């Protein structure tokens, strides 16, 4: 029987993050790469969760639904996929197949 690997997302192990925020604006600095990123509130929320623990996609969507009860689950799922792709291409997040 084939086993399908589930992708886990986590903060890239070599990153060391420092945060700053004003109202709903977020800036994060990674000490290792020296890069500074401006993040939307959704990007920041997802990245913060991944800093604490690796997650697959669905707990991230669930956490967002709790934070934004009025949101539509399908739209949110697409948004999370897009956010994870962007965080990965920014060099902040790694994908690991379990």
């Amino acid at each position, binding site marked *: 029987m084939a086993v399908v690997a589930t992708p886990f997302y986590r903060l890239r192990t070599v990153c060391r993050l*420092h945060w*700053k*925020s*004003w109202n709903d*604006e*977020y*800036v994060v*600095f990674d*000490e290792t790469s*020296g890069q*500074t990123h*401006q993040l939307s509130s959704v990007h920041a929320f997802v990245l913060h969760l991944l800093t604490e623990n690796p997650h697959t996609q669905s707990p991230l969507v669930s956490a967002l639904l709790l934070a934004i009860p009025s949101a539509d689950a399908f739209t949110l799922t697409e948004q999370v996929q897009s956010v994870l792709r962007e965080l990965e291409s920014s060099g902040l997040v790694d994908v690991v197949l379990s």
Partner: protein
Amino acid sequence: MILADLSHAVMRQRLCGTGLVLKIGPFAFRIISPIPSLHADLAVLYADYPLLSDDQFVDFTVTIASGTGWHRWFHRQAVFCFDGSDIFVPLPQDHAFPLLEWAMNWCISMHAHQYLLLHSAVIERNGCAVIMPAPPGSGKSTLCAGLVHRGWRLLSDELALISLTDASISPLGRPISLKNQSVDVIRNYVPKAVLSKLVRETSKGSVSLLKVPTEHLRRIDEVARPRWVIFPKYVAQSSAQLTPRSKANSMLELGRNSFNYMVLGHTGFNVLSQVIDACDCYDFEYSQLDDAVAVFDALAKQKVRA
């Protein structure tokens, strides 16, 4: 003792010999150059700067030499040397004085990592500073030159020196670099303006440097607190308009306009965060200097934030 206290002969002797040592902002510069046009502009633009004695520590020795090699038989050149190496490509000799300014900027921006260095103008009133970052061609220097002659103190035209301990800004107080049409604009706006000889056909167009008001130099050791970050843009025929700007976005833009934000790493991030914490951030469009002055005057009258 200031440079104006030296006779021309003694000044030339030092410049052609062991060097002339001046205190410029918090730095000690030793200037060495045999080039007469540089001597003439230096004597005028730096007349009020303190002379330092030769037994004091000098941060940077800047040599603007005559070019060597076969070129010197055809057209005379000026070359910036530091630690025995040529730093930039040789320029025509009449570019010597602007080259000196660019050389001093290079020395500070490459080595002075005891500050967060922003590529921006900084002016001050009532202890509160406006940081004005801007790419070339945005009219920042024209605006800075205008404001500095209408009640604002010049801290710097090109390089903001931000303390790593408390984010205060130290004056550098160097002449303001004006290009192309802004030279004429400022000649009209400031009738008593003292300017260096216009140098044409530099990589930045025609360049002339504006002397800093003497009373500003007397306050060279007085720091200021950052209070506003304003991104200026000259837009022909526009009315003077301040538009609030995102703090996060302003922070990233300031980082991009910094010489050493990347070098300072975590410290740079903390200091820049402090600056943005303390500042209201705006975009600013203008076309007439008088309108701009009025807007800045109104800004200065705002109550200090709690």
